[in-house]
């Protein structure tokens, strides 16, 4: 057989024992993430803070960040931020929201053009007024909350309620850690990041559901097994799938992170982080969580295991 076996055929890892380490570990990380969020804050982009963003490309040679900073400061537009990227030919310049409402933002670009047009090409210009940014914050938050709620409802209908709660706890765990990731790396947080977060949630749920699906199936099949053995068995059975899918998604994202354009890179980094966290949480948080939620704790109490529904016929 010449096929590569990335994962041994039958594994017997004690994932349930792992929870004794994983739960405190995750709790610690979550607290750290929340603390960092409040201590360092996130690097909010203009989508949420409002303001002006321009991407400049040197007409000749390399960009001179110091020069850009100096010239922009001379315009007296308040807080500015300059960042180089794309191998030194490009730079982004962010100007904070000007006081005085939507109308006040309009002058900024004109003044920047006056100062920079001669030496730099304006590759991108974005101006977000205070009201739109406020609404984007709202719709972004609402999006994440609504997505979690609708998934909760869906899983509640498809599984028992313990599964729904377990999945949502694992998802919140991923959400908190991802926010911590944004706080640590200071990667710009904008609407694209909300998309990244929702995709992470989607992926993590996807992973969790696959494991849960198997737990549910095992519950019906082995009515005499303890819940600990049962969950361990189910997680081990799905382990190779969990890892293989994780790797294929990882490969695709690595390509984005390396070869994608600047906007996509931040997105890909966040997704890569979320992929790892989401995979971890499905195995170490979502699955063991079921015990604490009181999904069958004794071998005899199999009433929970969806009576009336027999395991599907094999043929």
């Amino acid at each position, binding site marked *: *057989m*010449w*096929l*590569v*076996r*990335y994962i041994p055929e039958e594994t017997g890892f004690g994932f349930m024992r792992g929870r004794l380490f994983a739960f405190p570990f995750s709790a610690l990380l979550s607290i750290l993430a929340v603390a960092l969020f409040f201590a360092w804050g996130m690097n909010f982009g203009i989508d949420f803070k409002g303001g002006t963003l321009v991407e400049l*490309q040197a007409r000749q040679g390399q960009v001179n960040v110091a020069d850009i900073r100096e010239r922009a400061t001379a315009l007296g537009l308040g807080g500015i931020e300059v960042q180089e990227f794309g191998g030194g030919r490009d730079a982004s310049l962010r100007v904070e929201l000007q006081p005085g409402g*939507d*109308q006040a*933002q*309009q002058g900024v*670009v*004109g003044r920047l053009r006056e100062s920079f047009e001669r030496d730099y090409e*304006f590759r*991108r*210009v*974005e101006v*977000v*007024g205070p009201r*739109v940014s406020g609404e*984007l914050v709202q*719709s*972004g938050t609402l*999006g994440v909350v*609504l*997505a979690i709620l609708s*998934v909760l409802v869906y899983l509640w209908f*498809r599984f028992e309620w313990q599964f729904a709660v377990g999945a949502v706890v694992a998802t919140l765990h991923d959400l908190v850690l991802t926010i911590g990731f944004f706080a640590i790396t200071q990667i710009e947080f904008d609407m*694209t990041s*909300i*998309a990244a977060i*929702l*995709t992470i*949630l*989607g992926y993590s*749920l*996807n992973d969790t*559901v*696959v494991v849960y*699906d*198997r737990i549910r199936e095992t519950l019906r099949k082995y009515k005499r097994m303890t819940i600990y053995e049962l969950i361990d068995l189910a997680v081990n*059975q799905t382990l190779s*799938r969990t890892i*293989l*899918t994780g790797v*294929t998604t990882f*490969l*695709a*994202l*690595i*390509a*984005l992170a*390396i*070869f*994608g*354009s600047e906007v*996509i890179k931040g997105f*890909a980094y966040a997704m890569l982080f979320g992929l790892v966290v989401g995979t971890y949480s499905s195995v170490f948080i979502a699955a063991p969580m079921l015990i604490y939620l009181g999904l069958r704790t004794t071998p005899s109490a199999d009433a929970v295991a969806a009576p009336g529904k027999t395991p*599907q016929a*094999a043929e």
Partner: protein
Amino acid sequence: MLRFSTPKVIAILAAILLGVVVALPNLLSADQRALLRSALPSWVPTQAVTLGLDLQGGSHVLLEVDVNDLIRSQVTQLRDDVRRILRETRASLQGGIQIVNRGVQLRVADAEDRGRLLPRLRELSQPLSSPVLGQTGVRNLDVTDTPDGLIQLTFTPEGVTDRVRRAAEQAIEVIRRRVDALGTTEPNIQRQGADRILVQVPGLQDPQRLKDILGQTAKLEFRMLADNASGDVDQLPSRDAGGQRVPVERRVIVGGEDLTDSQPGFDQRTNEPIVTFRFNLRGAQRFGQATTENVGRPLAIVLDQEVISAPRIQTPITGGSGQISGRFTVEQANNLAILLRAGALPAKLTIVEERTVGPGLGADSIRAGAVASIIGFLLVVAFMIAAYGFFGVIATVALLANIVLIFALLSALGATLTLPGIAGIVLTVGMAVDSNVLIYERIREEGRVGRSAASALDAGFARALTTIIDANLTTLIAGAVLFFLGTGPVKGFAVTLSLGIITTIFTAYTLTRLMVATWFKVARPKRLAI
């Protein structure tokens, strides 16, 4: 699970083939597509995916109707109407007409006067109708009176909302005419919410001109300059006087709505850029009459509450045409001519969001996206073939079909492909093989417990497919939420991600299964090499 009736096989293959045909125009250049469109009958799909502004370059400007400005002009209008009715009914007023929040108030002490006045004032209040509900019973104006003679006319919140909505609709028409005059290709102009207008213009390098012509109300009025500041006058800044305020009679002789044409030009004597215009019949008559009566007095040409020039009337102008000079640059004259032709906006519009991407950056983004997609695809394919051998090849074919179907759906739905949309496709590449992994792992497992090849395949598919549905639906829910709440680029991501999930489920159910079944029928293996 592995038996397919012939009609089913045909249906599956036809669906994939259709996908290929619909997606095919994306490989052609715009010119080739145009050629194809003219050569082929109209039912042949020649539509390619629309690229978002972030990929093809262009400007996205979100405008908002300035509600306060609109209310202010509404209230001014109301005050003039009330004044007219007072004159007509000869009711005597105590004090003046005061402008209060969203309306006016006046005091008429005499009960008999009030009796004559009130019914006429009530006529100003119009019932509101909604396009959905028809007559709603709500009126746009509340008219109240107290026994001591205080009369209040206030616009209702519904009245204001209705006015804002209609203003946005009118503004869209005006904006369309203005943007069309810029000569750009395929601008997209649509209303967003009650009071916002989204203007998207592809391929515009410098949006300053666009913003210049969008930001101006362009309300043109011909009035008379007043001799002194008393009486019915407004104090308006004057360009001739270097921004100082001058008294202008409130009465409008002719407004911009009576213009039929307007062109930029040059003054024959001074060679200064000017704008020439023509009045319609009504405008020509009124202008002729006013200039006849006021020879020797200065006229005030007022644009957006600024006196842009105040020429002295030398002779009566009865020909119905004229020219405006106002120390314009050539571009300003060009813009003003466009604005006057397109008509005035019903209210001031404020730019609340602007995003412009240069064409160079767009092309770079496409290139980077394409490279990332291809490399991601190759990595995933290599990994899958190493893991599953021949079954990996099947997964690759399914993945290709997936991508083709995503492009076919994007083309057919007229959806827009954005930069985050490309990320969605790359992500789909990674996640689509999940369905194959689920199926194959399940088949391996079933084989391990001692099932025959046929039975392992069968059970593997049957069990994996329910998992695939459950797992993918949760992601689809996240995608749907993103679609409804996201704007612009993020929406583009939600579209490709969601379409990717749908095509993934489809190919897992049909194509992958069909390929495995066909292989099984041909090879008849005793053991599965998976």
